[in-house]
């Protein structure tokens, strides 16, 4: 057998972290031992939104969707025994990215590694937080300043760091078409680079190096041919933009470098074993074409629509990458698609349409303006509404969901098939945080916070003072509070006021009729409150529910994200709604929903029906129903009109009416 040349594979990662720094460290070490080649840190929502674990808004969220990092000792524990000078670490952190990077640098320094030896990525992309992911804290302008503080700092001090991952990933999750994904991501990158270029502390000759450090984070959906073309289109467009707009002469610095997490939102709860096949195909979309191959790949686990994956589930996804890179001959060839007129034609079409969209956004004043005016958000909500309608109508096939639902019982889901996080994680974390606060030097903390405030007010780079604060023992909540005080907080436009959605189907007409009939019996139009308790900012589901409810004639009070149970209860009473819809994707439904129910009772609205949607395992759903929740919806409930019909049932039942007889032969819920 002759020795053939093989390209070096991309970096293998798994997005992970939960419960505590120590538990996550054990997970990381296990994953590395199995052949993972980089780390991808998932932080919990309080850490992402700048709250300490004992803050009221953190209740129920600590250690849920990621690891809680409250101070330098948590960061040290997270990487204990992992040599940071040889590790490539990606951190999914945005609003508080400057702080988590500061903690990472400080923890490295304590282990004898200097900042200049570090390599990795901070996601640090605030625009998509406003559009989709929802863990923003500050208004756009100061957020962009923090983003560029990190860019300016790392280019000078951590040369191997990717200071920002411009994300189109979450745009696709929010419903973006490939054209929108390309155009909005490019507009976002331009906004960041323009802001860096405008800084007085970044000399013009440093701009090519800055451009060379910008990386992207893409989604890869199941339409994998289109995804290949999308990545190729982005590579070409980025090369053009960096050459023309930023005058980068060196083609190496113009390379389109990107990491990927393949589509999690498209994974199905029904027949979840099929997700393995989806993940493989989606991985192909971003590795097939050498010219546009990802630099790092993280694959979700097959059971993510059911709940948190176990280590074995994550191992299975890692094995997919290893088989693709080491068993197949993929890495032995030049680009497989060069010269393909089909791929070339589709790529060209995407570039052309993306350029048109990019020009539209530029005319509005760029990405930040298009966020603030809600243009981008409205476009995404409308695209997502169309996508969901296609699934409902069967125009878009989702195997096991809207087609081929017949199935044998799956041995994979018999018994416990997800990870259950120990309920004591939050309590332990709060205790260790308090112990940490008690032992640190109050004087050092105060003076570090004063230095931070001075830098914020005077406009100096926030990174050096944040690193100092990390060493001094400042906590995540204290750091973010210092910035909140100067920057204020922000609420992004929701996009749900976008015009009418696409033409009504027969289904919506019949529900609308029921809504009208019920309204005349109730004496006034049906009114629904939609909101998201807790810190989870993934608002796409809640938005689609709100839009569909409006389309069946319901008056919808859309209250948005980051609400306390007390706020939801008092809004529901003040607004005089007939029913409440809560959406929670962070897994903290147990604590938060029960809290809402209790506060409703205390507000004298105990009989107000509550429906809940989220990634909710059946056992939890049963517990919620027993606690008084009228209906629980999970990702398998894709038929929004059907959900509306049931909401009408719920309200009618509350008003003392029997639910309407449904025609025989309808889909089961």
């Amino acid at each position, binding site marked *: 057998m002759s020795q053939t040349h093989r390209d070096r594979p991309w970096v293998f990662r798994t997005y992970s972290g939960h419960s505590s720094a120590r538990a996550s460290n054990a997970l990381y070490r296990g994953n590395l031992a199995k052949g993972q080649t980089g780390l991808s840190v998932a932080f919990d929502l309080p850490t992402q939104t700048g709250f300490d674990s004992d803050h009221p808004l953190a209740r129920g969220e600590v250690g849920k969707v990621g690891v809680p990092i409250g101070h330098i000792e948590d960061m040290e524990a997270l990487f204990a025994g992992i040599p940071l000078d040889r590790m490539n670490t990606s951190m999914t952190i945005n609003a508080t990215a400057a702080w988590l990077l500061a903690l990472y640098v400080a923890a490295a320094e304590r282990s004898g590694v200097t900042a200049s030896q570090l390599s990795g990525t901070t996601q640090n992309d605030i625009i998509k937080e406003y559009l989709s992911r929802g863990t923003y804290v500050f208004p756009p302008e100061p957020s962009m300043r923090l983003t560029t503080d990190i860019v300016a700092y790392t280019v000078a001090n951590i040369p191997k760091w990717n200071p920002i991952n411009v994300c189109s990933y979450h745009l696709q999750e929010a419903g973006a078409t490939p054209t929108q994904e390309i155009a909005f991501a490019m507009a976002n990158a331009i906004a960041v680079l323009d802001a860096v270029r405008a800084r007085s502390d970044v000399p013009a000759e440093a701009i090519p190096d800055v451009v060379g450090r910008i990386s992207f984070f893409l989604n890869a959906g199941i339409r994998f041919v289109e995804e290949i073309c999308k990545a190729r289109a982005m590579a070409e467009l980025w090369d053009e933009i960096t050459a023309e707009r930023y005058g980068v002469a060196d083609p190496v610095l113009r390379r389109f470098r990107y990491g990927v997490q393949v589509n999690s939102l498209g994974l199905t709860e029904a027949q979840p074993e099929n997700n393995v096949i989806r993940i493989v195909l989606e991985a192909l979309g971003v590795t097939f074409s050498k010219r546009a191959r990802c630099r790092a790949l993280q694959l979700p686990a097959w059971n993510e629509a059911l709940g948190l994956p176990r280590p074995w589930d994550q191992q299975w996804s890692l094995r997919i990458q290893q088989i693709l890179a080491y068993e197949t001959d993929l890495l032995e060839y030049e680009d497989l698609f060069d010269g393909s007129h089909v791929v070339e034609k589709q790529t060209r079409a995407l570039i052309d349409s993306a350029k048109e969209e990019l020009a539209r956004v530029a005319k509005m004043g760029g990405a930040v303006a298009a966020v603030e005016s809600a243009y981008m958000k409205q476009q995404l909500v409308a695209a997502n509404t169309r996508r969901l309608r296609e699934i409902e109508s069967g125009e878009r096939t989702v195997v096991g969901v809207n087609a081929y639902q017949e199935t044998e019982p799956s041995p994979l889901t018999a018994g416990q098939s997800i990870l259950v996080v120990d309920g004591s994680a939050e309590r332990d974390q709060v205790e260790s945080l308090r112990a940490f606060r008690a032992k640190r030097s109050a004087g050092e903390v105060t003076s570090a916070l004063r230095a931070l405030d001075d830098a914020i007010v005077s406009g100096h780079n926030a990174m050096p003072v944040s690193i100092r604060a990390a060493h001094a023992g400042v906590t995540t909540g204290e750091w973010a509070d210092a910035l909140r005080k100067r920057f204020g907080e922000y609420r992004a436009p929701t996009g749900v006021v976008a015009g009418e959605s696409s033409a009504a189907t027969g289904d919506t007409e019949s529900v609308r009729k029921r809504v009208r009939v019920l309204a005349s019996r109730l004496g006034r139009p049906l009114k629904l409150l939609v909101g998201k308790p807790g810190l989870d900012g993934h608002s796409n589901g809640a938005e689609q529910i709100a839009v569909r409810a409006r389309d069946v004639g319901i008056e919808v009070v859309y209250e948005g994200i980051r609400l306390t149970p007390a706020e939801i209860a008092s809004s529901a009473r003040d607004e*005089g709604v007939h029913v409440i819809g809560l959406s929670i994707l962070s897994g903290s439904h147990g604590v938060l929903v029960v809290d809402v129910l209790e506060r409703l009772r205390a507000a004298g609205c105990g009989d107000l029906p509550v429906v809940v949607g989220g990634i909710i395992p059946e056992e939890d759903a049963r517990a919620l129903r027993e606690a008084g929740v009228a209906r629980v919806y999970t990702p398998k409930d894709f038929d929004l009109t059907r959900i509306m019909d049931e909401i009408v049932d719920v309200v009618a039942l509350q008003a003392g009416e029997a639910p309407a007889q449904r025609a025989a032969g309808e889909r089961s819920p």
Partner: protein
Amino acid sequence: MEADLVARLRNRDRAAVAAALNLADDQRPGPRAQALALLDALERGEASPGSARIGVTGAPGAGKSTLLDALLRGLRRTGQTVAVVAVDPSSQRTGGALLGDRIRMRAGGGDDGVFIRSMAARDRLGGIAEQTWAAVAILCAAFDCVFVETVGVGQSEAAVADLVDTLVYVANPGSGDTLQFMKAGLLELVDVFVVNKADTGAPAQRTARELEAGVRMAEREAKSWEPPVSLVSARDGTGVDALLATLAAHRRYAIDAGALRARRASGRERFVIESLTRRYGTFGVAAIGGSEGVIEQLRSDPARSSFGAASALGHAIESALGSPR
């Protein structure tokens, strides 16, 4: 029953406020009669000048909710209690509505002195319907200051102006709505102009200058209030206190000059005519002497509430037309 509810409203019992608002929205005959009795009692028992009623209107995207949030915080600092009726358009096709104003009004979170109620405009273009009048009457019983927020669509401002003591128009810098505004001939309805987003700098300044020029050109009654133009940034708080002072000054002016009383009286007259016309048509109103007849009736009995008058005159129309209810 009304007496009890009235007392609970005056004590700012939030459950009672919410229940009264639900009742006032209820179109079934029984609740409607109860609501009319309640509203009649509230209006007759109203102190003079009573709570401040302020309308906030402007084009979509002008930042009305964000501005209101800043005003609420400012008023709360001075100890005043505040309520907001936020009106958003309904879909004309489906009848549904997306009411999203709470998102930007976070001042209310956990504060007992703030009450926000979202309302759908239903089939009213500007959203000022009988229910809005009723909501304002109920909220005035419980709160020191009541705001009505509506989307300005060029035709609704007059209806808002009838309902409030002070009408604020929020302009979006550089959007060209100033010109729209002048064309619509609404200058004489507005009491205070606000150019929001003053942090945008030059565009805000330019819009303010355009508005000032417009105000100077408008023909207003002699000695009347000349509407000031306030530059405000709801985002960083610039100009919010000054705007609150301007609103207070307008209220003082209106009370002292007797304008408040006159405005409320004429507003009520138009409300009753409008309400009767919607219910019975111009033909019905003609049966009791047309608008002039209605105004005459109202002036002959100033102690009567507008809701009570609308109800009684409705009965008069029904019997004049000979149609049983």
